[in-house]
């Protein structure tokens, strides 16, 4: 059974997707990620999809779900490393995910998480 590794990087969690995401793997990831966010009191999640070459509406929705779940747990998600072809596909599928933060790579993603944390420590997560 494939599991997607979740690494801790300071106050953030790094999730690198390198395998095909099908139902079971996605469900397990959501379970584990939400648990880790709570147990580690993570302030942010970096979702690295630089190895993902092909996406479908399922993966698109899954990315959206992960971001929403983390936000509810007061952790911001940043999706990094999206390939141009993947970005175009998501837009064509109508899954532009406008509320999700994105960055070009893990470094930029961390910078984004740090700066957004500074501005939102006093803010309550809005629905």
């Amino acid at each position: 059974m494939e599991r997607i590794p979740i690494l801790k990087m300071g106050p953030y969690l790094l999730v690198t997707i390198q395998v095909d995401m099908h139902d079971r793997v996605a469900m397990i990831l959501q379970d584990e990620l939400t648990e880790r966010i709570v147990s580690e009191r993570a302030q942010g999640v970096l979702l690295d999809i630089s190895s993902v070459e092909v996406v479908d509406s399922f993966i698109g929705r899954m990315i959206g779900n992960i971001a929403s779940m983390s936000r509810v747990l007061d952790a911001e998600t940043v999706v990094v490393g999206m390939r141009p072809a993947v970005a175009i596909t998501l837009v064509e599928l109508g899954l532009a995910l406008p509320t999700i933060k994105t960055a070009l790579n893990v470094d930029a993603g961390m910078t984004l998480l740090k700066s957004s944390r500074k501005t939102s420590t006093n803010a309550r997560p809005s629905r």
Partner: protein
Amino acid sequence: MGHNTQMADEIRRRQEEILKGWVSYQLAALTLRRDLLKESGLREESRRFLELFAEAFSVTADSSSPSWKPVKDNLAEISKMRAAQGFSPSETAAFVFSLKQPLFNLAQERAGNDGKRLAEILWDLTMLLDKLGLHTTEVYQESREAVIHRQQQELMELSTPVVQLWDEVLALPLIGTLDSERTQVVMENLLQRVVETGARLAIIDITGVPTVDTLVAQHLMKTVAATRLMGADCIISGIRPQIAQTIVHLGVNLSDIVTKATLADAFQVALQRLGATVSKAPQAN
């Protein structure tokens, strides 16, 4: 058909004579285009064609048979060369049609007083040469279409350059209308450059886009959405007053995209976002 083989033999035997007659017919018609074609070149082309023609004719008078392929290939080559040199399709077709006269003369000699036989031979020759002449025109058309198609491709690529204005700032000056095909090219180009340069901002300038209707607006928004997914943000600039009116009248919603009237304003916003400032250098005395 028996008399075809005989005709073919006759053509081969009296090749030089036929060639001479044919070339002089061509030159008489081509007096205006001597600038484009040398007589020696014409003679060689004609000789080659006549050889292939006689060869195929000795097998069958039906030009759709595979025996006629070498002749058709030869004609295709000639047609393409002439098209590249600037001949009109009629001038190129005349190459084939002018062969009728010398061949008809030959047919008349062979048929003698046998009217029926003469009619048969002339009909075969006419059908054949007509089809071959049309073939040159078709090849001509195809090669022109290929040129147009290639130019269209080049035009599409040339008109969507992505330039780097500053560290992490890209500019995309769009010229011409934005249809779905171009949008695809634009998106791919832009996103590729975002990855290459690590840009955080892309300024899409639409000064050169003549009209913005709902479709164009949709394409623009797709491009912005895709760029955002890659971690870069977009600013749209170059919105002319007329365009602004059209956008509002059409009810297009650009509220979540920063829009500016000029590229200069957009660049200023970009610098601000990056936390950069521009200041005057101290004057040296």
